[in-house]
């Protein structure tokens, strides 16, 4: 076991990928000379050279589309979109090309493309830099959507993604980059079909992913001190969703709270909640609860931003209410 930060784990995964497959290259804004906005690719330009670590112009649609083309042409591109906020400029390529070409061509073409981007709020960067739109991406058939929350997953899911023959989108919560954790040795690659139980419990299932995992774990600690045993399920793969792990947990605990940094309406939490209702309705002791972001553009001041986002206290309150306490 090695202690390292989430950003170091991403960098480790990138380095391993570049070392092990000559078809792999990284491109994106400021990934080279600057070392990556979040320093995930620091040092890689020196190590692998400008052919494989490619700084791009601020042309999200074109460098994501070029990733699609390079993948069609036999390469294994990793495209870094600086943040999910800017990925909106590339949605045409993602939705209309990456997600459709395999099916629409009758299976003639695969697009082994990996796109990574930072997501989420919590750093006082205001409304245009604080989106959590993983749920939008998870809506789209034809792609795989990952949300690694631990350092082991940050490295391992990247390596697993590169083994996939079809497009994979990895959402790295910006709040997690400096977060330190234990990197488990060589358990690679991560199974991209399975959610993970991060804490076992018996009375309520806290179901979440990405940056919110740590808030759910904090809430579970708090609940334990109140004598409530909470299980924490880290979805980590949003498409394809491993609903069986969720249902198994809920059938055991009979209560579910879904925590999602996206806005409540049409959120990924809404999807999970619907699937729990469809699959485990008669096992529930009460309605599925959701803790999501308040439906406003995320404001700059700290107190307002905190109030807009799911917090451990909200999760604890939701659980208490569900349990009639």
């Amino acid at each position, binding site marked *: 076991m090695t202690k390292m930060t989430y950003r170091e784990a991403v960098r480790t995964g990138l380095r391993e990928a570049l070392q092990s497959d*000559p*078809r792999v*290259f990284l491109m994106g804004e400021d990934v080279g000379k600057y070392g990556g906005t979040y320093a995930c690719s620091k040092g890689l330009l020196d190590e692998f050279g400008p*052919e494989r670590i*490619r700084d*791009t*112009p601020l*042309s999200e*649609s*074109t*460098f*994501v*589309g*070029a*990733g*699609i*083309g*390079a*993948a*069609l*042409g*036999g*390469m294994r*591109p990793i495209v870094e979109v600086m943040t999910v906020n800017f990925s909106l400029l590339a949605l*045409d*390529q993602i939705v*209309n*090309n990456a997600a459709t*070409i*395999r*099916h*629409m*061509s*009758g*299976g*003639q*073409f*695969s697009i082994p493309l990996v796109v990574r981007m930072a997501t989420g709020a919590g750093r006082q960067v205001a409304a245009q830099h604080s989106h959590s739109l993983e749920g939008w991406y998870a809506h789209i*058939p*034809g792609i*795989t959507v990952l949300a690694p929350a631990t350092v082991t997953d940050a490295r391992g899911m990247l390596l697993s993604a590169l083994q996939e*023959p*079809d497009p994979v989108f990895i959402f790295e919560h910006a709040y997690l980059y400096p977060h330190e954790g234990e990197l488990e040795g060589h358990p690679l690659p991560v199974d991209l079909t399975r959610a993970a139980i991060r804490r076992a419990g018996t009375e309520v299932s806290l179901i979440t992913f990405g940056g919110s995992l740590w808030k759910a774990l904090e809430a579970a600690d708090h609940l334990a001190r109140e004598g409530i045993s909470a299980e924490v399920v880290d979805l980590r793969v949003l498409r394809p969703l491993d609903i069986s792990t969720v249902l198994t947990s809920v059938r055991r605990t009979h209560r579910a709270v879904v925590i999602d940094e996206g806005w409540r309406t049409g959120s990924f939490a809404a999807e999970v909640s619907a699937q729990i209702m469809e699959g485990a309705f008669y096992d529930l002791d009460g309605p599925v609860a959701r803790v999501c972001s308040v439906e406003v553009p995320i404001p700059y001041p700290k107190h307002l931003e905190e109030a807009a986002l799911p917090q451990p206290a909200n999760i604890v309150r939701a659980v208490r209410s569900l349990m009639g306490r």
Partner: protein
Amino acid sequence: MTLELDRDHAVDLLRQMLRIRRFEEKCAELYSGGKIRGFLHLYIGEEAVAVGAIPCFTPEDAIVGTYREHGHALIRGTPMGPLMAELYGKANGCARGRGGSMHFFDAARRFYGGLAIVGGGLPVAVGLALAQKLTPPPPLLDKGGNEGGVTACFFGDGAVAEGEFHESLNLAALWKLPVLFLCENNLYAMGTAIGRHQSQTDIARKADAYAIPAEAVNGMDVLAVEAATRKAVDSVRAGNGPYLLEYRTYRFRAHSMYDAELYRTKDEVAQWKQRDPIPLFQQRLRAEGYVSDSDLDDMETAIAAEIAEAVSFAENGPWEPLEDLTKDLYTPAKPAG
């Protein structure tokens, strides 16, 4: 101008233009008969572009087309049967019937669509060219090597208004990628005339802003198209980075199958039809003594037979079974071990 032309080559150019024309006339008829549905964007009037340009590319090169790509696929070598079957939506179509008119694909011929969002093919073409430039080391090549492979990216004048056009030209030039930007300027972005959507209507000049060599070509003259394309391909293949060609052409029919054509006058269409690339070229070949009336009759007969066979291939093709609706959404997982 004297034709210093190989007779067989000249006759083949004519035959290929006629193949597209007659194929699409049949498509229009089948559309009216309900056999083909959805959008159907015909290339009639613009045939000289695909016929002059596409044979300049080798089988190792990549082609990216638009939603008006029937002619491109046909000239690239996809047999007419699978193309017609695709228009029918049959499982023996060139994309298993999944795409229809706007989405022809042919992996064996490196024909990457059939991409129907205006401008959306340009970034993909840039990426294909990047892969060609980063030619993987020999063990990874599927066959022999694609050193020197280039990508042909077709798009229309409407795409020039999209940000992806400008981004793609910039990135391709910046990275000196082997891509040809081939603009088929038929003067209308659907129904909006170029003068009503571009501040600079001379598209070739836009390439200057990205330090890309460019040329405007008479797109109604198959020989002019061929000569300009060959020169551009040679430059790109030699490693000089991208090239832009603007083929000035005209669409004789509606944008898709039907429109009221309120956006242009009948006189304008009639004027352009005077420049129809097929009869003009036919006259030149006749004047040169390259073809006789009976040669032309034979050519028409052979094409009619090819079309009849394609229609029969489509008519007799199977529908994809319902249980295959979600097949090919993802690549099937390899069995363990």
